[in-house]
């Protein structure tokens, strides 16, 4: 697959940057987070990853 540049690609790139930025910031918090807080963060991170995966899949299709 070799997707050509398009508005959809821009949207995808932005979504990847934005969601990865949140993941990176959340990961930085994990180290010092109390376990309950860490669980909540991990849950949100998982949802974020799944949402990102869905966006990439949508683009590929």
């Amino acid at each position, binding site marked *: 697959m070799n997707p050509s540049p398009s508005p959809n690609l821009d*949207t995808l790139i*932005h979504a990847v*940057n*934005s*969601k*990865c*930025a*949140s*993941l*990176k*910031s*959340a990961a*930085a*918090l994990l180290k010092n*987070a109390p376990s309950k*807080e860490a669980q*909540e*963060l991990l849950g*949100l*991170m998982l*949802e*974020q990853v799944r949402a990102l995966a869905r966006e990439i899949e949508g683009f590929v299709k």
Partner: protein
Amino acid sequence: MEQKLSVLVVDDDPLARKVMENHLQGHQLDFAPDKATALSKLKGKNHDLCFIDLDLGKSQPLAGLDLIPLAASKGIYSVVMSGHDSDPVVEKAYALGCRDFYVKGHEGSDVQAVLSRFLSRNRMSRERIFQDRFITEDKETQKSIENALHYAPSELPILILGPSGTGKTDLARLIHDHSGRLGEFISINCSAYNDELLEAELFGFRKGAFTGADEDRKGKLLLADGGTLFLDEIGSMSPAMQAKLLKAIEERVFYPLGSDEPERASFRIISATLENVQELVESKALRFDFFQRVHGLTIRLKPLSQRKDDILPLLSFFNREKRRLVFSPRAREALLGHDWPGNVREIRRVVDILSAGTKGIIEPEALQPLLKSAHGETKARDFTTDAQYRFALGHGLNQALNSFIDSLVQRSLIENGNRRNKTVKALQISTRVLYDSMKRSGANIRKRAP
């Protein structure tokens, strides 16, 4: 943590909101996941800072940009955070009034850096206020003013209490300047007018509405549309006039004199009085419903006799564009020992006189006559406000005197339950003076007092 801030975070990403919640712990936080919620929260509450994600979901690309002007107009320090740092978008955000920017991904350091910049700029701008706009080193007064400025962008009405010359009008203007309102600051001294004139000043009039109405004139209410209406000396407004104004404030609709066409205006009310407001309400000189409508936040300004630390800074401030005054240590003592009954206005006057005619080091002997006469003259000046003086210049002394008499008579009648005998006795006037005044005020003199 230096200061608890009220912060709004606008981001459609739940994980990003959670990250911000962690980094802004200890502050009062509010979140908005979309543009509509953010607009409603920005309109409803006064936040110190607002972190705005530019893209609020697929259906709202760059919607965060639309929030910046509202935040800026309310004096909120808006910070744009984005997944990318495209130059045109960032430039546009700054052009719209955003104050800070960072690329998402390093919140741990970036959020703290933003907070430090905000607090440092805030501290500097607060210090400048007390050095340039409202000169005071008195901590209590500074706190009151900071509190008033915190509410400046809101709709909350503000009532400023304080003796003559303490800077009530300056404070009202300062609040307006920090309100983010695009309209004008319109001031009116209610004690300078009788009811008819005050109504014409406030509501405006159409040509021919009364003798002398040679052309249409806009009232202060319309002039204050989108801005602030400052009602000075509200205690001298008659209850009937208060009722009319209350209706206009609440309905935001009013009729100029001689017109059937309604006019609309929306403005923030700041009012002031040097009188004891509780006594005004108890004596019914101030209607309770009107009082309720104008006193959302009450600020009390202390007389200079209770904030002596401000005397020398005020002298320097008023002297800064004039020939520099040098006081001997004894003269400084005399200045600090004086009660300054005319407050800031009196200091300004003393500086004007001294800088115009005194040479060399100023000794207490040179101050003595000034401080004495200042005391005596201030008592006389208390009867005459700037607005009254301007009215006399514009309408002649006789009309000004009549207006003054009519205001006093109306007020005394109210305080005495409309009993004429009591009013005549209280004001030590003849019945003729009373009836002449009532006639001028349009009162029905045949109607007996209850």
